[in-house]
């Protein structure tokens, strides 16, 4: 672990956590998507930092990650946000201050849970695993508290970024085929959700997911 890669690792992990918290705080869609792009790039940086130098195809994988998570997904979401129209303020189920407190609580839980992982792992990057878990939990929080369809998609991608980060930190990256398969699946899921959002927009006239309550027992 050369000092430079350690430095890149620290900044990337910090960026990941920061973007996650900011996403929870900011409520506008366009702002959120930008932060999501940033988070994708931070994840790519993390990928670069955790690969032992000289593994050429791993660098290619990191590039693909950056392209997928950093550029393609935000672009798609923004395009749908434009067509959908009222991209403005999305109502949140939980007011920001409570959101922040919950984020703090989940981060402590993440650190508590990750303690055995960190001690058990022999990898130098293991210390940063709690960051990945924290991002997963915060992503879940965004998903559960936002009523806007697109912000739910953002939440889902955040959860995925968190899991990717945990994977990179704890194992230095999954085998290439699996990594590619996962990325391909996530992109496909986002595409499906966006198509559904556009259809909901046509038939429900609003994409406030909280209104989707007709199917009940």
């Amino acid at each position, binding site marked *: 672990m050369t000092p430079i890669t350690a430095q890149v690792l620290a900044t990337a992990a910090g960026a990941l956590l920061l973007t996650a918290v900011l996403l929870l705080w900011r409520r506008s869609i366009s702002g959120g998507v930008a932060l999501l792009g940033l988070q994708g790039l931070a994840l790519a940086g993390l990928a670069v930092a955790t690969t032992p130098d000289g593994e050429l195809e791993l660098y290619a994988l990191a590039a693909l990650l950056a392209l997928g998570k950093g550029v393609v997904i935000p672009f798609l979401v923004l395009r749908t946000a434009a067509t959908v129209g009222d991209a403005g303020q999305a109502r949140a189920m939980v007011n920001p201050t409570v959101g922040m407190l919950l984020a703090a609580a989940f981060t402590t839980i993440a650190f508590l*849970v990750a303690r*055995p*992982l960190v*001690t*058990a*792992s*022999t990898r130098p990057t293991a210390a940063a695993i709690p960051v990945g878990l924290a991002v*997963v939990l915060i992503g*879940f929080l965004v*998903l559960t508290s936002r009523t806007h*369809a697109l912000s*739910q998609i953002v939440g*889902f991608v955040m*959860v*995925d970024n968190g*899991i990717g980060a*945990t*994977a990179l930190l*704890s*194992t230095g990256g*999954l*085998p290439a*085929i*699996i990594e590619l*398969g*996962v990325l391909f*699946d996530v992109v*496909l*899921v986002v595409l*499906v*959700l966006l*198509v*559904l959002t556009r*259809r*909901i927009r046509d*038939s*429900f006239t609003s994409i406030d*997911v909280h209104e*989707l309550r*007709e*199917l009940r*027992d």
Partner: protein
Amino acid sequence: MAVIPWIALIIPAALAGISLTLPKASVVRHTPLIAAAALLGCGLLLVVRQPDGLTAAGGLLRIDALTAYLLLTVGAVAVVATGGATTTSANGRFSALMCLFLASMTLAVLADNLGVLWVAIEATTITTAFLVAHGGGRHGLEAAWKYVVLGSVGVAIAFLGIVLVFAATGEDPTLSWAALTTRAHLTDSARIGLALAVLGLATKAGLAPMHSWLPDAHSQAPAQVSGLMSGVLLSVAFVGILRLKTISDHALGVPLMRTMLSVVGLLSLAVAAALVLTQRNYKRLLAYSSIEHMGILAIGAAIGGPLATGAVLLHILGHGLAKAGLFVVAGRTLSATGTHAIADVHGLLVRRPSLGRPWLLGITALLGFPPFGLILTEIAIFVAGYQRGFTVVTSLALLLLLIVFAGLSRHVLAMTLTRPGTPEDEMGVDPASGGQRLVVLGAFIAVAMLPLLAWPLSSAVQAAVAALGGMP
């Protein structure tokens, strides 16, 4: 022997391509049935040939007695679901997605590498998203949205689990199930990994508390899709849980999975019991009955031992066939009566015998009456439960099963028997053709034959149980 799994994978995928490109509607309408028949054929071939742990595609896929048995189940249920249902607006896209859905389930069954298993399960969610929304209008969209969001989030948790299991393999990292089962010691992160993986797969298996998407998705999806999902997709995900349980029992000892599966099983039974009692929609009634049967399977897996595990595998086949047949009949009832509500449908047995009889027959199979095979498997699970010290869990399960029995029979009787004195509102005709009715009847007869087919089935089931490492 090695080529069969490839056939099982490629045929559905190829058929998907064909149904997209070929203009002839008559062929495109039946491509899912052809794919299902192919799967059934491969399954039968594999079961007869008794493979013993052959790997293919560089260790990503695996063919052993368990996969052979599962392939047979997937094929059989798929034939019933696609063969029995009336494909009304079957355009190319619908058939293609159905074939892709079958292909992804086959991949999930054949997967040896946990990562491939995850990708396949996620693929099933993606392919079925638009199938659920197909023709359902507003409700279809709402069901699809909830299905995709909840399904993907649940499966993401599974992915986090798999990642931690991968981290726990320490020096020579491997995700191959066969290798993992031989690993004696795994680091502590395997505990969290396996627990999260099982929780994630429990979402796709429809186990509580991750079950909320299931009633909406299964009640809105067209008949053959919900038949397939309820019949075999839940079971494919459940077998994933069984595979993870084998790793956990081997590496971490038995208590972890016992407590987790017992709790999840009892929760599922409780949810099913609570929501079946005053249910108003008969397709949701079937969905909750699926949750109940998955609860029984979870408790059977928690009990472990060769008897209970054999019963679980046999129960998967029996329940899959019966549930697929029932969803198909429910679809036909919906198109005949035009209403979801139980209260609006009465006297099916007399006014529409072609709907009433299979409906009552299938529900009798689910309630656990002879001559259907589910009675035998449930008794085996209860007896094994008591013998392996699960006295409290099994007794609670029995109590909840009684409540589910009461709820289910109350609603089904209200639908099938006549209410003397109520005015006869008009009821549409049953759209199914003779062939489709025969397929459904054949499914129920197959479930009835299960306890009698001791000769061919017992060797297949015992081999599958052995493949699972005998479940200590």
